[in-house]
């Protein structure tokens, strides 16, 4: 039964990786840019969620768990706006400047966002208000248990990913997004406003990332300013593992990374979980350099 337990834990962490990996992969799709600032946008979701919850619960202490809903919406909107702003200010002017300049610009934005968080909130660990997330556990037979929080997290994550998949596959704007990720000039000749599509990607990716940041913080209860870099890097790796640029790939890559990590930690040793996870990543890349579902090589950074 330990296996089932680890699998559920792995899926939960994997869902977080997937949500964040989507942001990397969508931006890579339309701009062929590794958006290194994405992890820190995700981290800002955690901080803004903290402030939002503290303010709302101070004003309306009886709101309890209901406080989460409006705060999630505010966090999503704010982080999405910051994402659009970052694209406009730091990436768009460099669109024709080759591959390297935008990547460096993205790293610069990452450091700025991280330093801002540390200077504003301090370097210490932050704790989310307690008692607002569901606490129950459900026995699954044997000694395996799934917490209500895990069920909620998984349900929300799958719902978001399913909705995004349908949006990209079935709608006109989603199809245009796939077209733009194949060829900007040809997309323009179709009458697609490529800048607008890229802006939409920078709404969706960081919006999801912000929500994920808040969910992660709610799930773990505490975090610090290194969250963006450590967690973001893992999610980036998940995106590569699944095939960067490929949306179902990011979902799959996140899940696999989460499961490998937890199984490795549970069965072998927590200290060795990263070693195990990355050895498997390297093996996957040796046999499938474009990632599990990727068709094209992520040729340059």
């Amino acid at each position, binding site marked *: 039964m330990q296996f089932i337990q680890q699998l559920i834990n792995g899926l939960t962490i994997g869902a977080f990786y997937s949500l964040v990996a989507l942001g990397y992969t969508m931006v890579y799709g339309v701009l062929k840019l590794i958006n290194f600032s994405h992890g820190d946008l995700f981290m800002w979701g955690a901080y803004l969620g903290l402030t939002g919850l503290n303010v709302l619960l101070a004003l309306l202490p009886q709101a309890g768990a209901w406080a989460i809903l409006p705060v999630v919406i505010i966090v999503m909107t704010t982080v999405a706006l910051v994402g659009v702003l970052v694209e406009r200010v730091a990436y768009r002017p460099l669109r024709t400047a080759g591959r390297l300049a935008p990547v460096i610009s993205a790293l610069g934005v990452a450091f700025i966002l991280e330093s801002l968080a540390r200077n504003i909130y301090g370097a210490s660990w932050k704790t989310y208000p307690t008692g607002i997330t569901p606490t129950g556990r459900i026995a699954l037979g044997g000694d395996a248990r799934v917490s209500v929080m895990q069920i909620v997290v998984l349900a929300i994550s799958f719902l978001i990913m399913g909705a995004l998949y349908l949006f990209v596959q079935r709608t*006109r704007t989603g199809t245009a997004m796939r*077209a733009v990720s194949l*060829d900007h000039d040809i997309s*323009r000749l*179709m*009458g697609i406003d490529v800048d607008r599509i890229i802006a939409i990607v920078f709404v969706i990716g960081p919006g999801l990332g912000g929500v994920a940041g808040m969910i992660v913080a709610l799930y773990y209860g505490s975090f610090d300013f290194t969250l963006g870099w450590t967690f973001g890097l893992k999610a980036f790796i998940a995106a590569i593992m699944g095939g960067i640029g490929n949306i179902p790939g990011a979902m799959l890559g996140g899940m696999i990374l989460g499961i490998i990590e937890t199984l490795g930690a549970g069965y072998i040793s927590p200290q060795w979980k990263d070693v195990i996870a990355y050895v498997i990543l390297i093996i996957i890349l040796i046999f499938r350099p474009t990632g599990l579902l990727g068709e094209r090589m992520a040729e340059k950074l």
Partner: protein
Amino acid sequence: MALLKIENLHTYYGHVHALKGLNLMVDEGEIVTLIGANGAGKTTTLRTISGLIRPREGRIEFNGQDIHGLPAHRIVEDGISHAPEGRGIFSTLTVMENLNMGAYTLGGDKEAIEENRRRVFDLFPRLEERKSQLGGTLSGGEQQMLTIGRALMAHPRLLMLDEPSLGLAPMLVKAIFHVIREINARGVTVLLVEQNARAALKLAHRGYVLETGRVVLSGTAGELLRDERVRKAYLGER
């Protein structure tokens, strides 16, 4: 009245002066062809008209409106469709999705899209058979059909075709040129860029000969077909 009028157009690729004061005109209902060697500026001319490249100098007038400097997606809305060289199929989108992207400017107007799609399938029944296949799995000829069909999905007034015969077997070239005539007969003005000068001049009403970014010769297709210089340089005669 001229549907498309280009005056003194100068375009640069970085420091390369690709178009050096180009002048040309296309009347409503015509098929006009641009012929010339590689690097003469034929593709650059089309890319400048469709807004992919901004001209440094000069005017492009379409239907009485200045369109130079407009972004490419606006120019499509104004009624110019460009089927680019090398086909430019969205390889991981289905044939249907490729066609729907061609109709992007129609927004959610389902009726108009359906009507245009029926027209395209009427011209290219093969595309209807292949509609749920991925674009990248089509043969060269089918991809060319898709490129032209996709450009027609916006219901353009002016259709610009860049090398539609490139890499196709002679039978297919004939079929494609037949369809171009048919499209023109249904009221779409055509600006055709071709390496295959003989086939293009047989199809077109008028032609322009480009050399190093300038028009060096122009006239009716018949005049150009009989012209000594054209015969020597572009029709392979001695």
